[in-house]
């Protein structure tokens, strides 16, 4: 079983490191052209199962989905420049979600951020929303809520 989990992890992270469109086996139905224009959603979560789940959901919506195990990994990646919406865990080893948000704001990047946490704390929520977060979801959340927020992010991205 451990081997199976390891295999899945590896598989998911592999996907995360490469654009979804380069793995046609998984998305035979997505036209290349469509994919190139598809908005990119980045997902940061230190929990592997959650990372894969959100990625799968986002991909099923036809977006380009990239996953990262930490805020630092995301900051180092080229996705930093073309992400239309960022879905990030709040509590993570290293930089946490709010710190990442601050850093992005300081860099002048206006990526819409959706926070996801398994440890809902009103203070952190208020903090994040005040700093301009798009949304704040408590795990386990309803997928519809996440989809609505993503749509909102893409919508605002188109307008500006």
């Amino acid at each position, binding site marked *: 079983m451990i081997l199976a989990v390891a295999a899945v992890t590896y598989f998911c992270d592999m996907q995360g490191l490469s654009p979804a469109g380069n793995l046609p086996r998984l998305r035979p139905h997505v036209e290349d052209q469509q994919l190139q224009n598809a908005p990119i959603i980045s997902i940061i979560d230190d929990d592997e*199962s*959650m990372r894969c789940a959100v990625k799968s*959901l986002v*991909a099923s919506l036809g977006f380009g989905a990239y996953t990262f195990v930490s805020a630092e990994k995301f900051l180092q990646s080229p996705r930093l420049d073309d992400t239309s919406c960022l879905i990030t865990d709040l509590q993570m080893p290293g930089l946490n979600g709010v710190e990442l948000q601050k850093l992005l704001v300081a860099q002048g990047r206006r990526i819409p951020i959706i926070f*996801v946490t*398994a440890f809902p704390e009103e203070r952190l929520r208020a903090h994040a929303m005040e700093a301009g977060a798009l949304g704040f979801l408590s795990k386990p*959340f309803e997928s519809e809520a996440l989809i609505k927020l993503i749509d909102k992010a893409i919508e605002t991205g188109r307008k500006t």
Partner: protein
Amino acid sequence: LKFRAIAQNAAARDSRAGVAAPATTGALDEQPILLSTLPPSRGQKRLALATVLLLLAAFCATVPFAAVPIGYIREFIPAYAAAMFVISSITSALLFVQFSVVHSRALLAVSGGYLFSALITIPWALTFPDLFGATDMSGTTWGVLTRVWRLVFPLSVIGYTLLKDDEAKRAWPRPLLYFAILLSAAALLVAADLVTWLATGMRELTPSGLLFSVINRAQADWNALLLLLALFALALLWSRRRSVLDLWLMVVMCGLLIELCLIILVGRRYVVGWYAARLYFLVSSTLVLAVLLSETALLYARLARSVMAERREREARLMTMDVLSASIAHEMNQPLASIVTNADAAARWMARPTPDLDEVKATLEQIRNSAYRARDLIGSIRAMVKRDDRNRAPLDLNDLVREVLALTERELQRNRVSVEVELDEHLPSVQADQVQLRQVLINLITNGLEAMAGNRRARILRVKSAIQEPDSVLISVADTGTGIDPEIVDRIFNPLFTTKSNGMGMGLSICRSIVEGHGGRLWASAGAKGGSVFQFVLPANIAR
């Protein structure tokens, strides 16, 4: 796992706190606790009576020798005055503190009396004729001061007695309270100064004036007046006696009466009676102070105990409800969230014009893995409460019940829950882990408390211990709360089952695991008169 470490830390902290402070009695008293409001106990009444009798006996013993001259002891008056000053000022300070708590003008009167006594001792000692020789050899000033002192003190007691009963119970605003205390202290200081100035300057100012003649009347008239005043104060106190303070003020009045009697009897200085009179009054004055101080110490002990109990309770609660459930919530929400999101993703992959079965398969795999993870989590919670013989020792469940009731006392009081405890004193001990079983009891009691939170009828928590034949002990916790729906009674012990809006529902599941880990059984049933009963049995120690 993360929560495991946290839970163990909390458990360790909890047991430390338990060791640091032995269990307190679970008495839920809401009695008045101040000297000025508390009715005297039987023991205190006896002590007061014994004191008065002792003073009387001393008086009688002194009478035959009252006129025996001792001679002038130069140190006596300064020592006596210093003692009186210290005793009176501390007593007055303590009474002022009581005034600031009870807001009673009566207390202000009596503490003012004590403060005046303290202030007047200074000129009183300084003007004592033989002490500093040079001034006023005749002792007129000293005599006047003595009379004023003996006059003001009983008057303040009479004022106290008259004011104490018919008072509108209203709270004084804090600034006014301080203002009243400061103002009375300042007024008394001025009054004492004025009296001293009048007494010293009187002979020169109005040698033949009316005031002088009144103050300087014959010793006998004055003594009679003071005696009557003290008697009146005593009688008034007796007719309106209610509190511990009243009781001891009566003792002080008796001391004053005895002093006056002795003074009248001997009529001279430096004889046995003269010295004894001062000593008797000093002793009776000290008594009020002693009682006030012992009460302060008692209050301090109570406060320390309740603060400690509160702290322990908070830590215990932290362990059960907050830390444990929060960490479990965090650990549990991850796989749950993953399952929910994956299920939705799978549905979407399926719903595509050409369903992506590979994605569906991968997603289902994820769901299975998350479910396994949740299962492992539950398993590790069970492992946490699993049998570990090293922590087991003979445990008296009655003691544990008392301890947990003391821990939760504040919470119970706050929710106006009355506790009925019925413990079998012959309960054999059980071989158990104290920290774990304490957790079980805290959980059961907290559950009962929460079940009664919305109660309109009486909130009664019944905790019982009994011997369950042949060789088990039974603990039951019954509440008069909402009771358990028969449809869910089988599920309430499942992990994550909860009817509360806040909480993870881990409590009962953990409780059952702990009890079963001890070779016992935990179950729930409907109470005889509504509410629910949670009971557990544990095997008793063979060696009784």
